[in-house]
């Protein structure tokens, strides 16, 4: 990263240190709710449901409780496996569909590729809520309510426009000469994509896949409307830990930690790529 200190805030060392400290302070404040959630996950209910306590006897009791299967309710294992399949398969489908689309929008642009790209993106402008009624009716008539399949289909549709858009910009960075050279060498389309293009766009592909995973894993609206009984995913499982009777803060926190952990870890690991993927890729 470049040093822009001088450019933006002007010189002195003291000032620079102060700004560093200020950034630290802001970051800690912004992160605090997450920290507090983790802390509460390790508390007894009695410690969580009282004036905020920083020091307490940590326990993993809440984690044991939320992961054990409560009678008749949506279980931890069930929700995680539903989410895993819905998110995993839809992300793979998105990539399988988006790669050829991105190819034909950038490397070998089809006629009117701009209109095609706009059409892809325009589907993203339709609020899901406007589509939910007919979706619900169609799903009911096809007997897809409360199945993993309906979520796989919808998550694929939901993430596809963004994926095409991002991948197109990554593909556009592949040097044209390289593609042409491989063509002269007699590589067919598949060979071109797998041996020339994919290695170059791999980081972009990872960023795109990660974003699809984040959006699908965190999706609540479609899941709760279409799969309230079976095939429920992790977000629904989290809300099932809110109870109107008795204390639930510690349990809810423990469940939240488990639910957010996969995506948070993935996001932390890939943050630099995400910066590129989100903006550089989207603009270039």
């Amino acid at each position: 990263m470049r040093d822009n200190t001088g450019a933006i805030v002007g010189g002195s060392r003291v000032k620079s240190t102060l700004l560093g400290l200020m950034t630290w302070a802001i970051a800690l404040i912004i992160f605090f709710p997450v920290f507090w959630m983790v802390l509460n996950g390790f508390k007894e209910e009695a410690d969580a449901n009282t004036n905020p306590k920083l020091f307490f006897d940590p326990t993993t009791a809440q984690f044991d409780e939320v992961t054990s299967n409560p009678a008749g309710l949506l279980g931890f294992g069930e929700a995680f496996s539903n989410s895993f399949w819905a998110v995993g398969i839809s992300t793979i489908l998105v990539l399988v569909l988006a790669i050829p689309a991105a190819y034909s929008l950038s490397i070998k642009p089809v006629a009117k590729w701009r209109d095609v790209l706009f059409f892809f993106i325009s589907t993203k402008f339709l609020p899901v809520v406007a589509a939910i009624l007919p979706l619900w009716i169609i799903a009911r008539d096809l007997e897809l309510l409360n199945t993993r399949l309906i979520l796989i289909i919808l998550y694929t549709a939901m993430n596809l426009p963004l994926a095409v858009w991002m991948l197109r910009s990554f593909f556009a960075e592949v040097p044209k000469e390289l593609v042409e050279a491989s063509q002269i060498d007699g590589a067919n389309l598949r060979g071109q994509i797998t041996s020339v293009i994919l290695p170059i766009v791999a980081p972009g592909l990872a960023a795109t896949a990660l974003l699809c995973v984040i959006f699908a894993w965190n999706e609540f609206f479609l899941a709760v409307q279409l799969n309230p009984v079976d095939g429920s995913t992790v977000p629904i499982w989290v809300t099932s830990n809110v109870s109107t009777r008795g204390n639930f803060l510690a349990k809810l926190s423990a469940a939240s930690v488990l639910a957010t952990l996969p995506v948070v870890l993935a996001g932390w690991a890939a943050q630099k790529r995400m910066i590129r993927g989100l903006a550089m890729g989207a603009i270039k």
Partner: protein
Amino acid sequence: MVTQVPFLFSLWYSLTDWTIVPPSPREFVGFDNYTSFFDNQFFREAVWTSILMTVFSVLLSVVFGTLLAILLDRKFFGQGFVRTLLITPFLIMPVVAGLIWNTQMFNSSFGVINWLLDAVGFERIEFVTRFPLASIVIVLVWQWTPFMMLISLAGLQGQDSSVLEAARVDGASSRAIFFEITLPALRPYLELGTLLGSIYLIQVFDHVDVITGGGPGSTNVPYFVYQRSIGGGWQFGQASAYSIVVVIASIIIANFGLRVLSNLLEGEAAA
């Protein structure tokens, strides 16, 4: 296709009087559903709430995100770690974010914010009950500031440092450099952030559901349509009419959005 076909169904349903529970035959009523809700006070409130919610959360997160990006785009101790802390809220599941803020930050008996207010001698405030819209906007801004920060950060890092160097050598003040060089260079990135943010934030459902459950003053249009249909109202004909209005509004916003995108592509072609 998956989103366009249902839309055509919606269009048809919106012209019918169709209540699922109790079941009633679907009747064609023409534009009654449309004329009836323009004077529906609750719908008008929902539209107003949607506008406020989207505008405030997008604007605030763009401003905060850009400021944080500027702070982060400098060398200081623990830079990578600080960036990691800052992006975390964007990765948190919206349902979890809403619940955690609601039960552990805003809550008047166990919430951290109220505990702090109490400690410095102020009265405890029932945030969610008294300021439902503001509470939701706070959580939205908390989640979307990191996203805007990432986009601005990419813009700042893509800046040509030789231009900055030249400006400094020419004796430009740091304020002038920021407003004359950095900000214009950031513009496409900020537009992109605003556009993406608006697309997602106009559709907010999860946060409303878990923070206020659509309490007074916090029902936005998506939540309103939900309440009128599968959320308990079961008036599919009328709810479809509402969602058609949402679509028309989206088309207007989308037009603006596509113009922004088109400018971005023009820029690419020129570059």
